[in-house]
């Protein structure tokens, strides 16, 4: 099976500093890949490169057979890549309902949208996602007043509204309670059946529970890749990442 997302020899330098150094990765459709690594390993930068927020210095990104290298954010998003940010980014002045409605971006043409007041299929999808995210009773609240956990959920909900083929989740459980983390793990496992996910996460317990494949980054390069058992027994990974964590 070919990879849904293929990253070929990706490099990104800021001035003379190589942040991403010859990083290659293949994400197979229908799997959940966890991207781990110490702070500054380049995980979020990789996310930025995949979604077009920053353009690579060299290398190639192929999504579903299409070359998406250097495309604008909205083009990549339309191709089917949804993203949740590390610092939850929701539209704080809009209501929860409006946030989810905007995220339901089947039609993105401004002229077409000028004449559209009812979006077909929106209501069912919105009800489904709001229930899943546990935000049904908060739909008419301003997103800015939600708690941190709810904000995380809203942003995950927004990504789900997009129904992307590939979801990038940057630290989705940061600031969540134990119960919320369990729920997130359950949902991610459910999502894996129908879609592909890349999850950046520090919580190894969470990674252990959800990951099909774990990719370890270090200094902008691929350090190791494999199942969670392989990774946890890899001495190099223990050195640069897991060991550090246990010591901390």
């Amino acid at each position, binding site marked *: 099976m070919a990879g849904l997302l293929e990253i070929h020899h990706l490099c990104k330098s800021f001035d003379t500093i190589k942040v991403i150094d010859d990083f290659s990765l293949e994400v197979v459709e229908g799997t959940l890949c966890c991207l781990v690594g110490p702070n500054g390993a380049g995980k979020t930068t990789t996310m930025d490169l995949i*979604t077009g*927020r920053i353009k690579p210095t060299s290398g190639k990104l192929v999504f579903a057979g299409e070359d998406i290298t250097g495309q*604008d*954010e*909205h083009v990549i*998003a*339309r191709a089917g890549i*949804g*993203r949740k*940010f590390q610092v939850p*980014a*929701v*539209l*704080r*002045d*809009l209501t929860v309902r*409006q*946030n989810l*409605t*905007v*995220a339901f*971006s089947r*039609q*993105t043409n*401004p*002229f077409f*949208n*000028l*004449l*559209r*007041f009812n*979006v077909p299929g929106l209501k069912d999808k919105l009800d489904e996602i709001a229930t899943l995210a546990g935000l049904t009773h908060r739909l*008419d609240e301003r997103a800015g007043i939600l708690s941190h956990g709810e904000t995380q959920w809203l942003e995950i909900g*927004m990504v789900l509204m*997009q129904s992307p083929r590939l979801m990038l989740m940057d630290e989705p459980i940061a600031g969540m309670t134990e119960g919320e983390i369990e729920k997130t793990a359950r949902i991610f496992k459910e999502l894996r059946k129908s879609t592909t996910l890349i999850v950046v996460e520090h919580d190894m317990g969470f990674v252990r529970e959800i990951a099909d494949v774990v990719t370890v980054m270090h200094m902008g390069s691929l350090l190791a890749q494999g199942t969670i058992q392989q990774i946890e027994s890899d001495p190099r990974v223990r050195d640069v990442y897991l060991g550090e964590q246990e010591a901390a």
Partner: protein
Amino acid sequence: MGNLYYNKTAQWIAYAAFFAALAIIPMRIDDDFLLNQLATYGVYGLLALSISLCWGFGGILNLGQGIAFGLGAYGMAMTMQMQSQTVENPIPPIMLNNGLDYLPYLWWPFQNTASGLIFALGIPTLFCAVFGRIMFKARVSGAFFAIMTLAMLSAFYTIILDQQAYTGGVNGITPPSPLRLGSFEIDPYSSVGYWVVFFALLIATVVAKLITQSSFGLVTQAIRDDAERVRFLGYSVSGYETVIYSISGFIAAIAGCLWVMLVQYVSPAQLDVGFSISMVIWAAIGGRMSLIGSIIGAFVIQGGQSYLGDAFLSTWLLFLGGFFILVVRFLPNGLASLVEAGLGLIATKSKTATSHEPNGAKPFPAE
């Protein structure tokens, strides 16, 4: 029961009440001069509406709305000027006085009234589309975009001032007779002029309101909130910004045309930086997130300027400045937020009280 301020039906009722009130005026007033003056307030209302759409709902602060207004006004003045030229006397006096004995190409489209009006509205809109496209594609936003519009405005001002033979220079253009549409003459000092402005404002407001309620309007509000985030949802932010900026420019161009129709005069003063900034002040004081609030803001400030300004002379500017500071400091969303807060209070009260009345609040003129 929620806050009536956000109730769409209540909003439409408030709009209907507002325009009904405006429609009663010409039936009550017999003074043609006063009617003409009130009609010019309607033009200012259109401008405030255009700013509210662009800034309040699109998050694009535009300090150069005078470009669209001015180009529209010049287009209309040129059309009206050409209407009064005859076969024996085909060249307008501003050219003859400046040693030009032929009609420049710039004026050709305005020889015909229909094509003149199309150009008067089309050129400013086209300018906004092209300028907006270039700026927004390069992700110029916020204060930087505001500065660019200001620079553009000054450039237009200078060019128009400088090209005396084509534009009349500092004296501008003073068409000798009112606008004629076919055989019908629109007398600016009559209720006809008022009604033309009234319907323009009514239609523009309804269209603008529908835009804010459409999917497009929701996306622009999302962009106002966090443009960066919206890109990752698949929307072309620059595309949306260009469209709302152009629509706003189109409304300002209509305002420019109507203004010249009312006063039969245009000069570079209409592209003065101060005037464009006043448009932003109207919207800020009235409430930029409320279309109707912005329109009322324009009425209040311009009305105040006409009546109090005459009494207090330049002290009026001090009042205005002080008022502006107060509003920005204590009511960042303008006077409309007073209505919002008031209705919110009523909503909370009726929630706590065990009242059997299904609807405790009156429909205020709310956005």
